[in-house]
């Protein structure tokens, strides 16, 4: 009896996976015939990898559809029905911290920064800085939702700060900083936190699920960018101006 709801709509998911991957495959096929001309055994291996990826994508999308999206929405709606909306703010902080701290990509980023600063900035410092930065972002995003603060009021100062910091940070940190924006917005943030926010927005009178529910991911992406730019400034200061 649990099997039927678990695979509900799976045909649609398979269709979506095919729509997603076929164009890339055709492009590769054309490239292979015209330019690459890779050996046959190699191509067979690639195709096998793509098939595994397709299966993984189908399982992932289906799992998200039956588990994370409904859970996020239900919890969001339950919290709004319960009253005490401010609880969402510490809850957001906790979720933001835990997801970032557990994210393997954050450790890879920490390693990269440690390398670029020749060990001056420790890997653990990055992991904690990013986790706290993302925690603050998610809390801020929840506060925006609860008190109905327009997204522009947060986004404009945030992006302005990015541009200002850019001119003071160490050159080697620029690329890493912007790349790290993508690190924190992993599949969990996108699926669970976004559907939670949409659920909350749908539950509060006078909030629009699209205008108010969306926007959280942008704040999460901004946190690591700002943090790494600041770390780059600190590094440049201590290293001393050479140029």
């Amino acid at each position, binding site marked *: 009896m649990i099997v039927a709801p678990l695979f509900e709509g799976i045909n649609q998911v398979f269709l979506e996976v095919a729509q997603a991957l076929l164009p890339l495959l055709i492009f590769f096929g054309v490239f292979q015939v015209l330019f690459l001309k890779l050996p046959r055994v190699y191509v067979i291996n690639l195709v096998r990898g793509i098939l595994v990826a397709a299966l993984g994508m189908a399982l992932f999308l289906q799992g998200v559809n039956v588990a994370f999206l409904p859970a996020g929405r239900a919890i969001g709606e339950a919290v709004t029905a319960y009253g005490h909306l401010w609880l969402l703010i510490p809850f957001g902080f906790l979720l933001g911290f835990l997801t970032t701290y557990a994210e393997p990509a954050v450790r890879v980023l920490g390693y990269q920064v440690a390398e670029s600063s020749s060990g001056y900035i420790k890997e653990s410092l990055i992991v904690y800085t990013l986790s706290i930065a993302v925690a603050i972002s998610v809390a801020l995003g929840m506060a925006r939702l609860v008190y109905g603060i327009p997204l522009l009021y947060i986004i404009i100062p945030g992006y302005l700060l990015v541009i200002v910091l850019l001119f003071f940070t160490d050159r080697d940190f620029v690329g890493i900083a912007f790349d790290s924006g993508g690190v924190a917005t992993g599949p969990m943030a996108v699926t*669970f936190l976004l559907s939670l926010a949409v659920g909350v927005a749908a539950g509060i009178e006078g909030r629009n699920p699209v205008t108010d529910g969306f926007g959280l991911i942008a704040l999460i992406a901004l946190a690591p960018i700002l943090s790494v730019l600041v770390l780059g400034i600190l590094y440049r200061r201590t290293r001393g101006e050479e140029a």
Partner: protein
Amino acid sequence: MLQEIREEVLEVVRAVFPIILIIVILEVGVLRAAPSDLLLFLLGSGMVVLGIALFLSGVKGGLLPIGDAIGSELPARGSLALVIAGTFFFGLLTIIAEPNIRILAGMLDTASGGGIPSGSLILVIAASVGFIVTVGVLRIIYGFPLAYLFAAGYGIVLLLAPFTPPDLLAVAVDAGGVTTGLLVIPVILALGTGVSSVLAGRSPLTDGFGLVGLAALGPVIGVMLVGVIYP
């Protein structure tokens, strides 16, 4: 391959465990969910974990080598037009294949009740990423400073933001973070290091960086432009 998948599963479990635990606590404590609902959630979470692990190992075995091969083949041909066309389409098609984008589109359909056409949104996002990643690859080839590119890009975002309709504004800024998902990050990084390593005098470590950040910036500008032009 099996060994690889097993390692991926462990890594994914570590990453998603805190969230799953919190959701279970909330489902039991706050929602008082029925055991069958809880079981459905746990089985669904298992599918997510296994799905991500399979996807990532498939990406490593199939899609990454393609990104690398195309990234090193393009500049080696010595034709600028080919580099531009190749990178543009490769970037565009990678976005179409990104699982995160599918989730964003689905969520948008539910939240807006179909008011914002998600199919065309995917195409806008894909074309913007294709465009900006091409600019990023040209940057690696000609070697102008990354900071100027980002300053200009975020400057454009600041100019467009006040004129973008509010519902598209929220979607636009989120589209950036959503784009850089399970597929895009590794494939775009491979493309960047592929291009950098072919060109003499470019270090794959420092010059390969920045492409993912650009890929996250592109859709913000693209969706905002659409919102400003067609309010």
